[in-house]
Every structure is written in structure tokens, then in C-alpha cells.
């Protein structure tokens, strides 16, 4: 990428003379104020600013730049208070910000792709302790051996013992400043990762001792964590709501970030792996689901069709299809190879979001076709079991499955996890309660709010 850029710059004939500092601060202003409308997708007024080449091409009103003459360049002129048209349309940039851009134009608009693509990290001015009354379940994760349950309510993470009939409270992991929004166990149960705003903590699974804190390049809240099936990587999605999300691939050896992928244009709410571990799916508020190869972290396709935030995703056990659900209250099933929708279904009586999904085989059937069991968790507090999927052509919203509602949680569900080993669905609700259903939908236990 760097090489391509350099070649392009060369071709256009403007030498890259600016210092890294000028370019970084200018591109940050550009990224935070202009790119939403003049990006790769929207190109308002025919102008795109996501690459230097596009910026030099200009838009419907002509070239954005007049060489290095900042006073004459349209890009700068539209920013002044009395300008018509005025940019950004509903906001006035500060004089300092305008000067940063002007200096950058004078310096020949040196480019830095990395700055433009990275998420703006907002510095939190003042931290307060999370009010104790605010304790929705932010995340929960069942350990691979199904003996422990990690539940995040507020800034603390509690480890519950699931091995006995009575669920017993255990260790409390504390130290996060923000409410914890993501939890993940490594496949061998050796580690538990937790995350909130700008920070991932790794704990030893056996005794809850802290192993590592990871802050490097993490912008905003970490909204989802997942370990790859081989346990070699931890993948974290950070999310600046309504701005974007990056995937951070972390090596579980030394906990260093080995790759950073600009993934979505809004928060990511779910990361899920295929059964063979070769594909990772990310579900985002930008209404898209993206597929990634866990071998080289290359993009492997986009699933486009949801009309609101996508909150959850689950592969089928064979890895041929994927179910996705979200704030549009519908669940869509896609063919992974063709990335086409196979069917759509929903509980028409609920308009609330699908916040969690799990896909398993009907435990009573023996690997026949049509033994799909898709279990969803709803923001209305109800888990639902969908079976007998009916494929349909086109985009019509026919109800392509049979549905059975399971008994409700005591409040709206926020998160869920499924344990194949224990045959349990565990859901956390917005009041801080945790409900445990067995594989047939019977409520077998509840953990009260703190």
C-alpha cells in the first residue's frame, strides 16, 4: 500500500515534503470532519477525500486544491465562517483546525493512509466510578469445560462456579474503570480476557491473577473479544459508535497486537468463528456482516441485507451457512460460499432486537438435513428456538422457519452464551440478572442482580 501511494504521488508530481506531524494532525481533522460525507461511499458533490488521488481529482465544483496555495484552494476556502457553500454544513471548524489544514496544503498535502484509516481515539477527560446502581450484564462467557461462568456487571467481573447444582459466586476480578463489555475464554480455559474502554485485561483462568493489560492502538470501547479455535490469537473489536470499528489481532504468546484491520464504519457487536475456525464473522451497527480468514486476516466477503444494526451472528455446525440477527428484529440466514440470503424469519410479535444467536443440531436428530436449531436471545427477554428453515428466493420477508418461544428472562436480554458441553443457554439481562436455560428451554437457574 505504501508503495502504491508513493508511486501515485510521484505520478501526480507533488513531492512528499511534509513532516509526519503536519500530515497526521491534518489527516485527523480531515478524517473526523469531512470523510463521513466525502468518503469512499458517499462522495457528496462528487468529491471524495479518502485517498490523495481522489482529493486531487476534485468534485463537481472543480479542483479542491490550487497547488499549494492554501488561500485559493476550495478545500480551505469553504471552511471560513462566511463561506457559501460552507463546510462542514452544520458546524464551524476552529481557527486552529483550519490552520492545520492550510499548513498541510502549503506543505503539499503529504499523505498517511494509516492515520486516515485508524479510528480517532478520544481522550476521556474525567473518569468517574461507574454508579453502582447501573449494572446491566455487559458480557458473559462460559468456560470451555462448562465449570465456570464469567459475568460482567459494571466494572467488575465475577466468576461463578457452575459445577454444582447451586451456582456459587467465586472470584471477583476488578480493575476496569468502564463497564466491562466483552469477555472471552481461551479454548483451553487457561485465560480469560475482559475489556472495556480502551483496555483489554488478560487473567489467568485458574486463579484470576492478572496476566496482561493491552492498550496499544485501541480506540473507544472494546465491544467483543474472541479467541481463535487454535488459541493462538485473541481478536478484539474496538468501537467508536457511529464512527467505526477495528479488529485487533493479538498474539496470545506475548499479547502483542500483530495486526490491525479497519473493519466497519460503526460499532461491532459480535465476532463469531466457524466450527472449523477458518472464518471469523464480524457483525456491525453499519448493518453489514463481514467475513475474514483467520489464516491471513484477509476479507472474505460482505453480507448486506439487514436494515438496522446487526447485533449477533452464528455459523451453522457445518460452516456452510451463517445466521445473523439485529435491531431490525429479523434473523437472516446466508450461504457462506455465495454470500446470498437463504431465508429470513422473525417473531412478528416482537419489534425488539435479536442480541444473541447460537446454531446447533437438533439434539434429537442424527445429522439429517433439516435438523437446524437456531436459538436467539431477544432484547424483549425471550429466547426463541427456530427450526425447519425454509429457503426462499428474493428478498421477501416470508417467515422461513418454525418458532418456539422459551420462557422469558426477568428483564430484557443484553447478552448470551451457549455451552455445548453443558447443554445450557445463559443469558444476561439489562437489570443485571442471569438466567440459565437447559437445552430444551427450561429455566434451570437464575442468578439475581447484584
Amino acid at each position, binding site marked *: 500500500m505504501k508503495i502504491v501511494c508513493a508511486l501515485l504521488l510521484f505520478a501526480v508530481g507533488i513531492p512528499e515534503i511534509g513532516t509526519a506531524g503536519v500530515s497526521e494532525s491534518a489527516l485527523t481533522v480531515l478524517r*473526523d470532519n469531512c470523510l463521513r460525507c466525502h468518503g469512499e461511499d458517499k462522495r457528496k458533490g462528487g468529491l471524495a477525500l479518502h485517498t490523495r488521488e481522489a482529493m486531487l481529482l476534485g468534485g463537481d465544483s472543480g479542483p479542491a486544491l490550487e497547488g499549494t496555495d492554501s488561500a485559493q484552494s476550495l478545500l480551505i476556502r469553504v471552511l471560513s465562517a462566511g463561506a457559501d457553500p460552507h463546510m462542514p454544513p*452544520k458546524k464551524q471548524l476552529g481557527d486552529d483546525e483550519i490552520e492545520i489544514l492550510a499548513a498541510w496544503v502549503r506543505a503539499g498535502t503529504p499523505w498517511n493512509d494509516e492515520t486516515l484509516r485508524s479510528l480517532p481515539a478520544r481522550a476521556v477527560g474525567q473518569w468517574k466510578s461507574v454508579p453502582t446502581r447501573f449494572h*446491566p450484564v455487559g458480557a458473559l462467557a462460559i468456560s470451555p469445560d462448562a465449570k465456570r461462568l464469567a459475568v460482567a456487571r459494571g466494572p467488575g467481573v465475577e466468576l461463578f462456579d457452575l459445577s454444582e447444582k447451586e451456582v456459587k459466586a467465586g472470584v471477583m476480578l476488578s480493575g476496569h*474503570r468502564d463497564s466491562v463489555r466483552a469477555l472471552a475464554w481461551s479454548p483451553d480455559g487457561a485465560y480469560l480476557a475482559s475489556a472495556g*474502554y480502551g483496555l483489554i485485561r488478560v487473567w489467568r483462568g485458574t486463579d484470576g491473577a492478572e496476566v496482561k493489560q493491552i492498550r496499544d492502538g485501541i480506540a473507544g470501547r472494546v465491544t467483543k473479544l474472541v479467541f481463535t479455535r487454535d488459541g493462538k490469537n485473541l481478536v478484539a473489536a474496538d468501537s467508536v459508535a*457511529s464512527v467505526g470499528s477495528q479488529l485487533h489481532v493479538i498474539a496470545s504468546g506475548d499479547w502483542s497486537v500483530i495486526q490491525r484491520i479497519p473493519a466497519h464504519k460503526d460499532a461491532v457487536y459480535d465476532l463469531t468463528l466457524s466450527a472449523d475456525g477458518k472464518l471469523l464473522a464480524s457483525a456491525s*451497527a453499519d448493518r453489514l456482516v463481514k467475513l475474514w480468514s483467520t489464516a491471513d486476516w484477509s476479507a472474505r466477503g460482505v453480507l448486506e441485507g439487514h436494515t438496522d444494526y446487526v447485533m449477533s451472528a452464528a455459523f451453522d455446525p457445518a460452516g456452510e451457512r451463517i445466521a445473523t440477527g439485529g435491531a431490525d428484529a429479523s434473523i437472516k440466514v446466508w450461504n457462506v460460499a455465495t454470500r446470498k440470503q437463504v431465508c429470513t424469519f422473525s417473531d412478528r410479535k416482537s419489534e425488539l432486537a435479536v442480541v444473541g444467536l447460537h446454531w446447533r443440531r437438533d439434539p434429537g436428530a442424527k445429522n439429517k438435513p433439516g435438523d437446524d436449531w437456531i436459538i436467539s436471545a431477544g432484547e424483549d427477554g425471550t429466547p426463541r428456538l427456530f427450526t425447519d428453515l425454509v429457503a426462499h428466493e428474493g428478498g421477501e420477508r416470508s417467515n422461513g422457519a418454525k418458532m418456539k418461544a422459551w420462557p422469558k428472562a426477568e428483564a430484557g436480554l443484553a447478552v448470551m452464551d451457549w455451552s455445548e458441553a453443558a447443554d445450557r443457554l445463559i443469558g444476561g439481562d439489562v437489570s443485571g440478572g442471569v438466567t440459565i436455560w437447559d437445552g430444551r428451554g427450561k429455566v434451570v437457574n437464575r442468578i439475581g442482580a447484584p
Partner: protein
Amino acid sequence: MRRNLSIYLLFALSVAGGAADLSFRNDVLPILARAGCAAGSCHAKAGGQNGFQLSIFAYDPASDYREIVHGARGRRVFPAAPDESLLLLKATQSMDHEGGRRIEPGSDFHRVLREWIAQGLPWAATNEVSLTRIEVSPGTGRYGRGAELELKVTAHYSDDSTRDVTRLAEYRSNDEAMAIVDHDGRVTLGGQSGEGVIIVRYMDQVGNARVTVPGERRLPDSAYAGLPIRNEIDKLVYARHRELGLLASGECSDSEFLRRASLDAVGKLPTPEVARDYLLDFSADKRAKLIDELLADPDWADHWAVKFGDLIRPNTQRVGVKPVYLLDGWLRRRLRENVPYDALVKELLTASGSTHQYGPVAFFRDKREPATAGAFVSRIFLGVRLDCAQCHHHPSEKWGQDDYYRFAAFFGSMKRKGQGISAPISGEPEYWWWEPGGTVRHPVTDEVMPPRPLDGVAVEIPTEKDPRSVLIDWMLTPDNPFFAKAIVNRVWGEFFGVGIVEPVDDFRESNPPSNDTLLDWLARDFVENGYDLKHLMRRILRSNVYGLSSMPNETNAADRRNNARSLRRRLPAEVMADAVASFTGTPEKWDGLPPGARAVQTWNTRMSSTFLDTFGRPDFSAECPCERDPAPTIVQSLHLMNSDELQSRLSAADGRAAALAAGDAGPEEIVRQIYLAAYARPPTVDELRVASGAFSGDGVSRQGAIEDIMWALINSAEFVFNH
């Protein structure tokens, strides 16, 4: 701008020390509403905006709370760093926000929201209270033109506490020419006299302030001294004129009165014979005699059946031909019997039986759901449009979903069997009856809604009693605030072209009557006289105000609401068709009706007729088919000028033109006959000269001249309008 700040701060931020919790409902939602977040064009539109959805007019606080606090895994709030909350970043436009900056950083609103997030997003305050009402002051007042005033809005709560919410309320003027109002309740009156209403909304409560601007030049009492007063109506209308500086126009001519009263009361043109007799009658009580004759005319029932039919006759293609035919027949029969209006409505609304045997059952077949039946009854018989409240609180009125569904609950236990609606042919009968059992539920809370009349208290209805009869009993209490007023206003609107409340079925606080003492008196008089429609019409017809000229004077030229002159009105479709038929002497032929039947006798408005379509019939695809468009159109003019149908009527062998041509009258006598038939008056000298001249052109036949004159008259405004 600053005047209410201290009071607001006092209430909301007395808690800033951390003592008491803020309330989502009472502290947070009002700010979001006022800032425009929950506007219908933004986050409260169907489906929300960019994934964030609030309820319109905050009708569902629990849903709004869930959306803000828990929606999308809590992405909008950040209690550990309140300033980083998306809710604040977006609202203050510290982050790119399509809706722009809704809340100033550092403002009171900003601080309250921030504090609420820091408190851990409480749902309810430590001592949660509920809003019971709002008070707007000054509630009424008289002001000069261009005057300015500041409104103050006080919210009253369940614990008797109050709060100044002037800066949180929303304001709207019902007539921008009368008064404009800004965001903070500052009112500036316009340059005209009259009455304006400022509608004030705060959460689910609506209040208003009425502003009256008296006429700039009030006339001396002597100006009113000589006005003839025939009954109470005149007194009350003149009293209003005095306040507004209006003076009634003079009286109309005998010809105008005859034509106007005939068209209004029975929907037909007076014949030349009737006109001649009336004009030559010099007795003092001839007007009273005419009025009695009109109200006794057998055609009265058919004319009013069209009016009431518009309100209650369903679409034949929905409920079937036979039920509508039976309903129409029932209505005409009852009107012919001059059944009192209360009995008529009672019979309709408590009907049961077969749609193929008993007309009124068609109403239930059409309004099948309790909610549609309730909204219909409210609008048609009570003049209250509840429809908005089906989905959310009425934007400018006190009606909420509670009112809507509790009113609907009176129809919540209707039972049916037989064929349902299977448009276009609902051929088989359906049976409707009442039987205990069945409830109406609130769509948001799912609570069972016990029946409650509008503005009334919930009524305990024994299980063995039909709730519909309880509703009727409430409607027919003599001091019911809606029932009698709604019908007298409708009838008044038919005779004057504009209701005392206008539109006639839109009674609301923010749409006050032009003359409330008059409306009160008419309603009381109507009830005291046994809900007798003919009595009401007699009162109206006998008033001096009804017989005013349509020529304006300098005081009333701009006024349309206060009956200071007669308004010119285009004839409605059926009346126009019958007028053309009787003027040309060529009765229309209607499908399924005997020869000689008139348009006002057609029993449904889908009968094929280009003429009626051109002049406007109820449109079943409209929101309420009870309305017709009364406006004159180009197509109507072209139809009268050019249609083959009209030409064939003029030249028909058995028509008036042929009869006049075959007679032995001279041109002048023929012209007089034609003028009497069209206008109920003789021609003026000039008209007589010009019209008679039509006979003497080269190659003009006698019949041709007559046809030309008649064509010219039909195409005149004096024919097409009632004046």
C-alpha cells in the same frame, strides 16, 4: 431567554449536590422533546433515525428509556465518563450529527442530561411524581393589534408540586395571521382582529391560551340599533359583531331568500310558478309560511338523507350492495317520519341483526373493529377527531391512547357470524349482536381498557348490560358537552356554508367556536325541543341572519366566520344535478330507481354519473369519506359549457325549451319564465333587452334562441351558486 432559567435550575439541579435522583420521565424526556430529538421528522419517525428510535410525543417512556439506556448494548451512554456518552456528543454536535447541534454545550439542558447519566441513568426520581396537568397563563386575554405578551406554563404534579416549564414546552399558533409565537412562549399579535389560539404542549399534556383582538374601530351602538331581531340567534350573532366591529349586510331580496331557503332546506330550485306566487304575495308572514312549507315538503327527507348518508353510508364495494341499500332506505324512512335525532342515532348505534334484513347493521359490518367504530362515532356524532390517538398522544389536544381505546371499548364485545368482508362482493349476510365477553387492550401496555366516555369517568357496566346503551345514555344526557353541539354545528354549517366550529367535525380546544354562546344556545334549544331537526332548521331559517344579503359591506368583507353576510356556496353535486334537470325540464334516469327520481334519491354514491363525479361525491379512498370537496373547478365549468349531455337536455323534445318554443308566449315573456326558473327572479330591464334580442338574429330559430339563453344562464355564477 434568561427569565425562567433560574427557576428551572432550581428544580432540576437542586440535585446536583447528589442528593436526589433525576427522573427520566420528568427531567430527561422533556429536554429531548424540546431539543427536537423526538420530533416526528427525526428519531421519532417510524423506524427511527440511523438506528436510534424514540416514541413520538414521548408516548412510550419505557421504550424510550430502554432505547437510550440499554439499546444496542448501551452504546449511547457512558456512566463512567458521562461526557463521552454518544447521547451528549451527538446532541451537542461534538461529534458529527446529521441533526446538527440540538443542545448547547454547557447549557442547563446539557448539565441535566450529564448529571442524569452520572447518577447511573435512574428511571425514576427519589420521589417520583406524575404530571397531572399544565396551566397556561394568561389563559385568555384581549389585546391590541401588534401587541406582545409572554406566556408562562406551569406543570402540576401528583404531589401538588408545580414547576415552571415555560422553557420546555412547545408552542404553536393555530392562525399565524392572528398571532405568532416563538420557542419560549413569546406571542406577537398580527394586524387583524379576531380570535387566535396558542396551543401549548408539554409531554402528554396540552393547554392553550386564547388571544382576542377586538375590532380596531368598534362601531357606535346606534349602528346596531335598527337591525331587525327575529329570534335569539340574531341577538347572539349581533353581540359578536359588536365585539369584532362587524356590521351585518342588509337583507337579501325575496327572490334570493326563496331560492336560498329552497336549495338549503329541500335541495331544489323553486319552480317559476312557486317563485311568481311568492314574489306576488304581499302578506307579512309570507317568509314564515314558506319556511313551514319547505320543512313540510316530502323532498326534505331525501335532501337530508344525502347529507346524513355521506356520514354513515359505507362503500357498497366493501360491505355489499344490499346492506347499503337497506341502510339508505332506513335512513330515508326515519327522516320522513322526522324521528328525533337522538332516537335516530340510538337506533343506529345499538343495532343488531342481519345485514341483509336491517339497514343499521351495515354500520357494524363496515366499522368492524372496536377502534374504528369508536373513532367513527367520536368524529361523526361527537365532532371529536380521536384518530391521532390511535398510535400516539394527539399532538395538539388532550386526547391520548387511553382515551382512544377506552372509548373503543364500548364496542369491544360485539359478536358476529356469517360472511365477513370479502370485497368487492360481500354478497352473503352477516349477523352482528352484542353478548357479554370481549375486551379492548391498550396497544403499548396491553392493559384491559374499561369503557370510558370522552371527558368522562369510567363507568361500571354490569356484565349483562350492552355497553353501547351506556354510551348512548351518556351521549344523550342533556348537558353532554359534545353530542348536541356536534349536530347543531353541522346543520348550521349546511345553512351558512361555514360551521360555528369549522371544520364542522373538528371540535377541539385549539379550534374554538367562532361564537360559543350561540353554539351553546342552539344546542340547549335543540335538546329542550326534543332533538327535533326541523325545529332547529326552523330556528335558523327564521333568523334575520339567515336572510342577509351576500353583498359585503366595508366592515365584513374580510370576515367569513361570523355570519355578517351570506356566503356564496356552490351547489352540491346532487342538488346541482336536480337543478339542471328541473330547469331544463328533463328528469335524469338513475339505475334501479323509478323514472322521475331525483339525484338526492340515489342510494349510494358509487352510482355511475359523470355529472355527480364532476361536482364532487364522497371519496371512499379518502381518510374520511364523510367529506366532499365543495370547491368549484375548471372541469365543472367545462362540463356545463360543453358536455353533450347538457346540450341534449336543452334540446330535448320534451324539455322546457321545447315546451316554451311550442307555446305562444312572446320573447319577453319567455325570458321572464326562464329567469324565474333559473334565479327565482324576473330579469332586469337590461337582461330582458339583451336576452330578447337573441330571438331576432338572422337564421335563429325560436327554440335555438331559448336554448342559447338557458345555456347562458346555467353557465352563470348566479345559477351554480347558492347566494
